[in-house]
């Protein structure tokens, strides 16, 4: 990454650099390494369709499925990253996911038969709207009551799931097929491959990356998390920023719920229980600092991918299922440590380079 630039690759490189820093490059390497290791260590099986032997991990089905598994976490992790950059934390995303899904399912059920496009649109609007609203409530409570986000979102985590529960009485509610048709559209891939979750994940990540690095509100989030007092002295709209980060987090939870409702075709008040911790872990593995001021959307995506890969590895390598928790727990700590080391190493390299080159 520190080789002298060559003119040919410059354009592509600068495009990549816009969305991805040194930090993320390290994560990409780690992810690639894990994927390569899995491919090498995995067995192979006969693909019945194609009639050839394929690698147990490196085959289109497993790869797309891994991306699909990651997509729900990744989408929420982008939102979580925004909150974490601001120095906050959001424990309520799992509950927002459940409530958004339940709300859209109940509404769609009450609306009866509708054209496919309308169904998808209603579901999207309701999920996104409910998610956004819950996020704004979180933010407003944090700002208005001056209570630590951990406590506010712990409270709303219970309250929102409680509302979803009362609304459904724990029944799972089916969604109209139009929604599944959308979330499982093959888009020409065919063969039981569903690219929509992956595409939505990429879309949300790019949007998140642009928001964080290229917009005023995004930049304000970094300032807020980097130094609250200095942000006040610089005249930033602190309340709006803080409400904003929770709104984004709620919105991504709503989007993930839209995707989940469509993909799985049913919702229940128990959905996404405990996801908040996976989502925060993904953001932190992706380089977000819980102290605030640091993090990236691309990192969140990669963090979610890595965690899902770790879980996948147990199945791919046919380890005893019982060890899943131990493996995932260790892997998360190791991933964060590796990420911190590579960040520090990058900082050292950068400073050495800066020393060599005279001041601008």
């Amino acid at each position: 990454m520190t080789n002298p630039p060559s003119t040919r690759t410059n354009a592509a490189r600068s495009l990549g650099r816009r969305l991805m820093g040194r930090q993320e490059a390290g994560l990409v390497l780690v992810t690639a390494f894990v994927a390569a290791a899995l491919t090498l260590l995995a067995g192979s099986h006969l693909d019945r369709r194609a009639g050839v032997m394929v690698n147990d991990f490196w085959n289109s089905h497993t790869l797309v499925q891994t991306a699909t598994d990651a997509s729900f976490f990744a989408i929420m992790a982008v939102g979580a990253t925004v909150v974490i950059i601001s120095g906050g934390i959001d424990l309520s995303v799992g509950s927002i996911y459940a409530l958004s899904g339940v709300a859209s399912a109940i509404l769609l059920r009450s609306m009866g038969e509708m054209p496919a496009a309308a169904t998808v649109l209603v579901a999207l609007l309701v999920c996104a709207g409910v998610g956004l609203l819950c996020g704004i409530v979180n933010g407003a409570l944090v700002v208005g009551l001056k209570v630590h986000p951990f406590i506010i979102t712990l409270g709303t985590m219970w309250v929102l799931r409680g509302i979803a529960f009362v609304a459904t009485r724990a029944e799972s509610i089916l969604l109209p097929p139009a929604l599944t048709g959308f979330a499982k559209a093959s888009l020409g891939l065919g063969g039981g491959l569903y690219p929509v979750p992956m595409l939505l994940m990429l879309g949300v990540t790019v949007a998140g990356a642009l928001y964080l690095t290229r917009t005023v509100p995004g930049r304000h989030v970094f300032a807020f998390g980097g130094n609250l007092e200095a942000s006040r002295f610089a005249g930033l709209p602190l309340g709006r920023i803080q409400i904003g980060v929770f709104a984004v987090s709620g919105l991504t939870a709503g989007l993930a719920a839209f995707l989940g409702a469509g993909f799985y075709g049913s919702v229940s008040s128990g959905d996404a229980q405990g996801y908040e911790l996976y989502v925060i872990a993904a953001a932190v593995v992706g380089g977000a600092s819980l102290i605030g001021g640091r993090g990236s959307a691309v990192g969140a995506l990669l963090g979610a991918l890595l965690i899902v890969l770790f879980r996948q590895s147990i199945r791919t390598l046919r380890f005893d299922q019982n060890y899943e928790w131990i493996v995932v727990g260790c892997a998360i700590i190791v991933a964060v440590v590796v990420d911190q080391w590579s960040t520090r190493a990058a900082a050292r390299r950068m400073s050495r380079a800066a020393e060599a080159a005279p001041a601008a």
Partner: protein
Amino acid sequence: MSTPAVRFEDVRKRFPGSVALDGVTLEIAEGSCHALCGENGAGKSTLGKILAGIHAPDGGRVLVHGREVRFGGPRDALAAGVGMVHQELAFCDNLSVAENLCLGALPARRGWTDPAETIRQAEALLAETGAELDVRRPLGELSTAQRQLVQIAAAVGGGARIIIFDEPTSSLGQHDAERLYALIGRLRARGVTCIYVSHRMPEIFHLCDAVSVLRDGRHVATRPTAGLTEAELVRMMIGRPAAEYLPAPPMTGEATELLRVDGLTSPGRFHDVACTLHAGEVVGLAGLVGAGRSEVAEAIFGLDPAARGSVWVEGKPVRIRTPRQAIELGLGLVPEDRKKQGLVLGASGVHNTSLPILRRLSPGGWIRRRAERALAVDYFGRMKVRTPSPETPVAGLSGGNQQKVVLARWLAAQSRILMLDEPTRGVDVGAKAEIHALITELAARGSAVLLISSELPELLALSTRIVVLRGGRIAGELHRAEATQDRLLRMMAGLADEAPSSTGAGSMEN
């Protein structure tokens, strides 16, 4: 005087991002008061922290009283009789003053803490510095000056034989500074060795026997202060003669009124403050520490929701409730504490510069990054900000350069009314002169500047008029022609005009 109290031998220290010390060798004589000078980032604090056991050197040796030491932490240093008054005032706000003072070795009996003994020890420590404080109070309630005094008491009281004072007067007013000088005198009488870091020239000549100069982490020279001139010292520090340490006073004529406040009151903080700023004017705001100067500036800037009063900008009555409104009206505030209130330390110079005006650079909310960078680079150039690159996080810049970034922010914002709260605190002579020149230039170009400073020479040299605040009320106003250090001091302290001062600050004027 045979073995020096401290000897640094080829001491090296690098941080991620910079080389702080690059082979420093110097000696501090037993019982002396030895000044350490140098520009911001020269490595003074780092050298002190190595002696105090906070950093371990990457290379070289440290000898205390002739014996090599390798401190594993501040505890080891304290045990070896080395104490330090830190530049950053770090305290546990949640603990009492007494507990903070005894933190390193809390009095305990059979495993249980002894609160009565803690209070007794703390009071004894404070008595040494002459500060009067209830040691049972939570430390968080103290003002900056009181904190500085507690910091000094903590370091001095440990019975240390060698004490490093790292810019101990940067938050002290004249009065408290005098007390510190007296304290150092008493310490020396007991044979304590003092290492004294400061950017204030008069202090150095007043207090110290010898001075060592650091530049870019290297030792430049060590000289006895006797026979050394200020100009020579400055030349050693910055590597060239400083053209003018303080610039000529700005020209003034009656010009358009830019800011007027009247009846400004914030209950419990200040009352009935009135003042006017004209284009081309530098108005000094003087007062003892705690007089409420910062609070007044912050209130004008919309940071004090409890403040009441009338404000006019360019003749129009306005209501400023948030800093945002203030910025839109052309105000800018360089806060007192640049690390806490001024900068997002982890963010780049560019991002820090554009922070308050990002919206202006971003049509539709999209940041025009090229324009943003160009703006920052432009002002960095004008202000001679030294940074590896505009993208470098400002945490890695020296204090003076950090201060310039905060100033650049308001210049880039085209603020016409600037309130500068201690703009040269902890800033080295070179940068200080540049900031002084800049203030003068700003006024000359038609801005109005409200200058808050605890350094009277600075105020006297730069201001057109000086408003004096005492106990949150205006004590008076002096035109530059009638202002002298002595008159200002009396007004600040509330003394009659004629009575001669006993602890003459005049003794410090060279």
